């Protein structure tokens, strides 16, 4: 090293380098001051907003849903204050552990835990998933105290939908549930993500969703980082949704649903002066109360496996051959076509048309039959003979005018309109000519003919009043006026009398006579055959081969006020249907007498519809264990039920060439009829 280093040069180096160090320090100091100025002044607004959104938590308060009222103002759907628990899936740290802990706190069974896990998996993540509602205070408190170790779990007080009559109104009112991912994507409002918010999934609840929903309230709170609420800043109350008042008579609806009992069927009752639908019961049904937390897999399996399709609204989506209930309407068609009602046809138990013989249900024959006897004794031969004279067209047109194949302007999710066959229809559908036996089949409501219970009830109203009665479901305080059907007073009275004789005279439904003084009910029985005589006698054997029992009615017969229809699926004939109609009408005119009859029956059946459904559920859940497939989401479910119902009534793929052979429809002698 040539350069001589002394302590003096080192001191100079120190001076120089300490200056460098000092400059760097000063530079960093200035950098820090500038950086802080930038964050605190230039970006102040942005960070102030972020601090505010940290601090303030806005929670929406789900609005109380509007009530659904019956015609007298009693609730068919109301709200019940309750304790509930929800989960926000994206805030969960360990979903499986949380489900386990929560499930144990709430006493969940294994399938219920599996359902909850499915719902969490399929949720949108940020939307609340309902866990349980209607909790008692002990369970609610048990969850609340463990909140610190269960992030994402939200216990709260709220309201849940309550249907006082449960399964009785299931199909009519529908049910509510948490919004699905698809529903949120369609209508992306923050309200749909709020824990505890439910929207209508079916029936009236779905149709009047916007009216029932109401305005959400809001609560602004100051929260800590861990989510603890420090104080309320501001609260805006919710606005309850508007009520919807239906024409339904709540007690009658409940009575009718319960009266169907162990059978599968539907009852429709209308006010034939206003068209008000007083009752649209369809059983068996589901309990809409238990659907509002999502449909459990046990419940879904039980309901979907049942051959009585409890998920289908049979009033609107059940289509049945009307059978002999169509005869009064065909009678109107004959009268309009100029047939003299007093002209008689000799019934010898059958009629030869061309080279075929068509049997009457009464093999031994009715003897001489006029139109009235054709109706009250339900003689097939009379109608075979007269229909040959008029042809199919006037009959088909009259059937349509009396409500068949008609879609009504009702607030319902879907209604099926059935079939009234005519030569054009057959040519278009099957490419085949209309044959004489097609007319014969149609005049007694068999063959291709299909109608829904609602259409049959409308038919009964129009027969009773000879007015173009239109059904309605919403009570608006106005009395509608209907167009007359153009039937003479004489013929109107004639058909009324003939239908009264079905019940009160020498007819096929003597047991349907009302046990009420001064009120006589008129009606018409019908038996719709499902399979040919070779497969079943229609009354015993496999349930699905048995005949449908039908009955249309109105009362009082001479000044009709109420009209309706009862259809009992595979009830083994009309004998299953008219006792139901009798009791329902009895309840309308004398509630106590009606209830006494029902209570006696329910003692035999093992409880009310709700009690039997609960017992069935418990038995099914115990037998099934955990290995059940999960339930589909409600939207898919509704579509599926609809599709199944449609498929069930598609009708034959090939034109049906068989001659229809009616069975014993009802045996007046066995009914103990008095003349």
């Amino acid at each position, binding site marked *: *090293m040539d350069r*001589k*280093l*002394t*302590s003096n*040069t*080192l*001191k100079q*180096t*120190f*001076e120089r*380098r*300490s200056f460098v*160090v*000092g400059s760097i*320090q*000063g530079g*960093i*100091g200035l*950098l*820090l*001051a500038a*950086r*802080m*100025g930038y*964050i*605190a*002044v230039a*970006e*102040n607004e*942005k*960070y*102030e907003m*972020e*601090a*505010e959104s*940290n*601090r303030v938590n806005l929670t929406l308060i789900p609005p109380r849903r509007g009530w659904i009222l019956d015609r007298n103002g009693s609730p068919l759907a109301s709200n019940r204050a309750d304790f509930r628990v929800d989960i926000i899936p994206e805030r969960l740290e360990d979903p499986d552990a949380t489900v386990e802990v929560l499930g144990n706190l709430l006493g969940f069974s294994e399938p219920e835990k599996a359902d909850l896990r499915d719902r969490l998996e399929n949720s949108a993540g940020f939307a609340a998933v309902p866990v349980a509602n209607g909790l008692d205070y002990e369970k609610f408190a048990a969850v609340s105290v463990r909140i610190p170790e269960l992030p994402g779990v939200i216990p709260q007080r709220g309201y849940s939908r309550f249907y006082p009559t449960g399964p009785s109104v299931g199909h009519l009112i529908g049910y509510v549930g948490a919004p699905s991912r698809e529903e949120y994507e369609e209508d992306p409002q923050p309200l749909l993500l709020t824990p505890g918010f439910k929207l209508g999934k079916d029936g009236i609840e779905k149709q009047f969703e916007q009216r029932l929903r109401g305005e959400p309230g809001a609560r602004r709170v*100051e*929260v*800590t*980082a*861990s989510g603890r609420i*420090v104080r309320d800043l501001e609260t805006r109350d919710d606005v309850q949704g508007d009520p919807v008042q239906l024409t339904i008579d709540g007690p009658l609806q409940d009575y009718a649903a319960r009266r169907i009992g162990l059978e599968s069927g539907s009852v429709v009752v209308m006010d034939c002066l206003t068209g008000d639908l007083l009752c649209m019961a369809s059983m068996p049904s589901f309990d809409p109360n238990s659907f509002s937390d999502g449909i459990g897999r046990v419940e879904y399996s039980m309901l979907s496996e049942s051959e009585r399709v409890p998920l289908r609204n049979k009033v609107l989506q059940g289509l049945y051959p009307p059978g002999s209930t169509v005869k009064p309407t065909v009678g109107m068609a004959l009268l309009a076509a100029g047939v003299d009602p007093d002209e008689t046809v000799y019934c010898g138990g059958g009629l030869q048309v061309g080279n075929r013989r068509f049997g009457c249900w009464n093999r031994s024959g009715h003897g001489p039959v006029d139109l009235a006897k054709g109706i009250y004794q339900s003689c097939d031969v009379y109608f075979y003979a007269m229909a040959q004279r008029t042809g199919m067209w006037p009959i088909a047109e009259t059937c349509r005018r009396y409500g068949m194949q008609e879609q009504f302007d009702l607030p319902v999710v879907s209604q099926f309109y059935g079939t009234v066959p005519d030569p054009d229809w057959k040519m278009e559908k099957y490419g085949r000519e209309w044959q004489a036996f097609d007319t014969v089949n149609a005049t007694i409501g068999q063959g291709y003919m299909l109608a829904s219970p609602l259409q049959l009830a409308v038919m009964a109203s129009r027969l009773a009043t000879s007015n173009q009665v239109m059904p309605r479901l919403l009570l608006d305080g106005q009395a509608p006026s209907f167009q007359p059907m153009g039937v003479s007073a004489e013929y109107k009275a004639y058909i009324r009398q003939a239908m009264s004789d079905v019940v009160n005279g020498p007819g096929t439904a003597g047991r349907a006579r009302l046990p009420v003084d001064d009120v006589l009910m008129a009606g018409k029985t019908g038996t719709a055959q499902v399979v040919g005589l070779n497969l079943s006698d229609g009354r015993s054997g496999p349930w699905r081969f048995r005949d449908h029992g039908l009955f249309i009615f109105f009362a009082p017969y001479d000044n009709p006020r109420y009209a309706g229809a009862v259809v009992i699926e595979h009830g083994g004939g009309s004998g299953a249907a008219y006792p139901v109609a009798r009791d329902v009408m009895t309840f309308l005119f004398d509630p106590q007498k009606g209830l006494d009859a029902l209570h006696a029956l329910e003692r035999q059946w093992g409880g009310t519809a709700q009690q039997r459904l609960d017992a069935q559920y418990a038995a099914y859940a115990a037998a099934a264990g955990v290995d059940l497939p999960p339930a589909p989401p409600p939207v898919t479910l509704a579509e599926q039920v609809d599709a199944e119902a449609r498929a069930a009534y598609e009708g034959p793929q090939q034109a049906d060439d068989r001659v229809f052979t009616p069975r014993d429809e009802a045996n007046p002698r066995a009914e103990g009829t008095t003349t």
Partner: protein
Amino acid sequence: MRGEIALPRPIAEFPWRVVIPLTLLVAFGAAVLHSAAGGSFSPYADSHLLRFGVFLVMALVMSYFPEDWVRMIAIPGYVAVLLLLIAVEAVGQLGGGSQRWLELGFMRLQPSELMKPGIVLIVAAFFHSLPAAMIGSWRALLVPLGLIAMPMGLVLLQPDLGTSLAIGFGGIVVMFLAGIPQKWFIGGGVAAVFAIPLAYFFVLQPYQQQRVLTFLDPASDPQGSGYHIIQSKIAIGSGGLFGKGFGEGSQSQLNYLPEPHTDFVFATMSEEWGLIGGLFVLLVFGIVLRWGLIVAREAKTRFARLLAGGLTATMFFYVAVNLMMVMGLAPVVGIPLPFMSHGGSSMMTNMICVGGLMMVERWNRRATASGL
């Protein structure tokens, strides 16, 4: 200068220039800690003030140590602290976990804290004894590097990256000030460029790697490691020019800000006092560090110069890294802010640095006086 002459000597020689700004800063720090405790003197503010009082007395006592004496204890002191570091490691190993302190009964001693001024002392003493002509030799490079590497390695084992870097920084700055050739620094800088990726993959713990990644992109993990930086910036940014007011900071009061009383005390302060408060803190640190450098430049001996320069650098390292961290300019390393963060070890280390500087200032005055 008349007023100064009139004052009695102990008062005139008292280091007012540093004690007054420091007291103001500590008092301000206590106010911030009072707020961070939710508006209560305990548990942070009261112990903060008490510790400052105790360590200020210690620093004043230190300032009377003579230079020979200090030079003499450099080597035994260094060896003793090194042995303590090994002891910590051994106790930790026996205890079955990592540990940074020794339980002495009356206090928890963190030997790594003592090593921060210790390394400055030993390196300064080494260069003082090294003949001036040998400053360019390998010995001038390798011996101090060895002295620095041993404690750094032991502290890294704890593992405590922040303290380890602080020790390294103090030692390197003393080497730089001592005048070793510039080429070593350039070479060292190039080596560091290559060493950083290696260190990232082989030396850093996974959680530290995560912190570096998060520093580069805090938004990548807003609920995890990025949370600290994001919340700290929100606190500083929402404070604005004048702050939200004493006790009104929502970020710190509602626990959004992590560690509001230790590492992120500056963010707590900024939220409530705004840019004005921040500039005040920066100003006080500026005054103290400038005073430290002036003391170093006025020092008469090579040892005193290097000692004062190194102690100033150590304090600077604390301040700079902590402030860069809270403002999102550096990754999250656990380094508190001197005189404001709550914590005994940091207060002790920084007051030892201040005491050392006051000591050098006294030596300067003696030398000037005797020179006259």
